[in-house]
């Protein structure tokens, strides 16, 4: 899979402060890419460089293999975290203006805008002013503004903040559909559950450095600790625990179960496989629950950040 966006050793300094220290990312075409990191890590700085709002002090950014240039703005749709619209301007007029700034002709923009407004069933907003709309409604308009010029690369900074769950779902589905139609999406967010749900690639930036990146499944594989969650019944739970404790590294586990099982996490030593464990367990008692513990993005995030502190 070729990459649509490559940042190579990007450095950005504000005075004495280094916001990005040789950060490289590689966003594969057609992926949903999660750009993660605590507040102030440098995510927004990187996104602003990709959008050519600021220029990097060193390093380069390639879009589709070519160094970024002014005309590339039409290939990128950006929804910033600090977003808004002209309050006293009418909705239709405003979207047309912003679309024209992205290089669409007025008639072209009108046709596409009609499509989106009909899709969202908001045709009657056309002549309303933004200040007459609710925050959620304005966010919808903001989304339309971001995608109207059919960019190859969509960048969303905290896209779901300000949406109620129903509208957040609508937007999520739209983003997935755009991806299916060939667009690449970069997500910058703190909401780990949406990363878990949508992203197939992630990069984690912490204190101006990239500390982790790759395909989400690879990252998870890398972070898993060969631990299995086990529910086992063997008569005397205390006795069973003692037996297992002699052989493995045990921690307590909690999960819902209808049986009165011994619930533990078992960490395997190097060399042992899940099959070895399972065959041992079946010889010891009745195995009702057996599942590998895969770290959530949230766990990985916290673990990585704490490790690098």
């Amino acid at each position, binding site marked *: 899979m070729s990459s649509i966006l490559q940042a190579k050793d990007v450095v950005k300094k504000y005075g004495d402060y280094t916001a990005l220290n040789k950060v490289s990312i590689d966003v594969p075409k057609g992926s949903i890419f999660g750009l993660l990191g605590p507040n102030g890590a440098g995510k927004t700085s990187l996104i602003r460089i990709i959008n050519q709002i600021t220029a990097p002090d060193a390093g380069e950014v390639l879009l589709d293999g070519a160094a970024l240039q002014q005309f590339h703005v039409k290939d990128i749709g950006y929804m910033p975290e600090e977003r808004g619209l002209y309050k006293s301007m009418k909705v239709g007029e405003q979207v047309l203006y912003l679309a*024209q*700034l992205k290089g669409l002709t007025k008639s072209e923009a009108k046709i596409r805008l009609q499509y989106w407004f009909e899709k969202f069933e908001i045709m009657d907003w056309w002549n309303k002013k933004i200040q007459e709309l609710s925050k959620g409604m304005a966010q919808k308009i903001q989304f339309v503004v971001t995608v109207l010029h059919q960019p190859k690369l969509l960048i969303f900074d905290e896209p779901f903040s300000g949406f109620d769950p129903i509208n957040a779902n609508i937007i999520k589905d739209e983003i997935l559909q755009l991806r299916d139609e060939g667009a690449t999406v970069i997500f910058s967010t703190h909401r780990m559950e949406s990363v878990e749900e949508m992203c197939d690639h992630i990069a984690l930036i912490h204190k101006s450095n990239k500390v982790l990146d790759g395909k989400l499944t690879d990252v998870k594989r890398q972070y898993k600790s060969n631990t299995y969650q086990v529910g086992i019944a063997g008569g005397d739970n205390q006795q069973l625990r003692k037996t297992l404790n002699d052989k493995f590294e045990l921690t307590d586990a909690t999960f819902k179960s209808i049986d009165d099982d011994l619930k533990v996490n078992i960490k395997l030593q190097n060399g042992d496989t899940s099959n070895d464990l399972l065959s041992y367990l079946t010889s010891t008692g009745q195995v009702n629950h057996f599942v590998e513990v895969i770290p959530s993005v949230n766990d990985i995030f916290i673990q990585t950040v704490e490790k690098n502190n």
Partner: protein
Amino acid sequence: MNHLPLIIKREYLTKVRNKSFILMTFLSPLIMIGLFMLIFYLTQLNNSKERTISILDETGTISQIFTEDEDETTTYNILKGISLEEAKKQVQETEEYGLLHIPKMTSTEEIAEQIKFYSEDSPSQKFISRLERQLSKELTDVAMVKNGVEVELVESSKMNVAIVQESFTGERTSKFVNYSKLGFGLAAGYLLFMFIIIYGNMIMRSVIEEKTNRIIEVIISSVKPVQLLMGKIIGTSLAGITQFLMWVILGGIMMVVFSLVFGVDLAGMQTAQQTELLAQGADMNMQMQISEVYQSLPLGNLVVAFFIFFIGGYLLYSSLYAAIGAAVDNETDTQQFMMPIMVPLILAVYVGGFTVLEDPHGTVATIFSYIPFTSPVVMLMRIPFGVPLWQQLISVVILYISFTGTVWFASKIYRVGILMYGKKASYKEIFKWLKY
């Protein structure tokens, strides 16, 4: 991609369609004319007050000059055969305006020193001056007769001098023409001053608006900040010019309508200064003077220079206004940054005005017409008096070079400032932005 026309169009239309803008466009001339009319009416009301004064003339001769009334607003009541105390009492009772007492003395000098005016409230200075003028003339005549001087001879020997000024190249001028030139210059300079303040503020507000609406980041992911900055400045300026033109047209129409409806003689509305000036050049008639002013004004130069300096000066300042807007989060924070803008502007108008009045080609006036922050105003004030072309050219070049400098400076601050939210900008902070 050049989006400048698109941005200009949006900025212009948003300003022009704004309700308060439309309201101000139509209301301002009404308010101004209304105020003008009110002042005119009140002044007339004040002057046309009818007064009655009593005169106790112990000499019996001097008061005869008060028999015929000069402006028909004052009635003179000559008292005879009563004492000063009785006269005072009488005037107080009848609530007349006052009592003029001319004592009987041996010499005219003594009389001149002893004349008194008694009144309830302190009298109008204008009225007192008129009395003094009338009395001095009469007493002078009396003294001259006493000293054996023939009054008619003195009158006919009086010479009135109005120096005709002529340059070596033969251009004639007069005091009246000079005052008119100064008027032209002051008007042009003041116009620019007002324009900068009104529309510079408008640009600043529009930058702040984009920041507080948080739309700025969406926009500058599409266009370069410098382009947005220029579009804003040009769009707002065009809106300003539209408003100014509307004011001129509406003002003109309303002047005509008012003068027709209320029958106010516009030509009669002359200030005291103008009347005085006319009196000094009494040998020339009005028509001639106007044509002389018209001929001696470097009109072509004035018009061209007006546009060049107006645009240059306005752009210079408005880019600074935009920079201030970018540096702050809301309008209340702008105060600390306004000083460096206002000081040179006010300096230009006042120092410029006074030094040009003193000597249009004096050192201070000349230097001020080179400094870019004051040159637009001061040069516009000087040009009616004729400024050598090379001086104007140097000034224009300095102005436009400085303009590129301030735009560079402003766009630097603008680029960084518009993305800074919630951070209170200080001069130190802004200085740091220049290096980003």
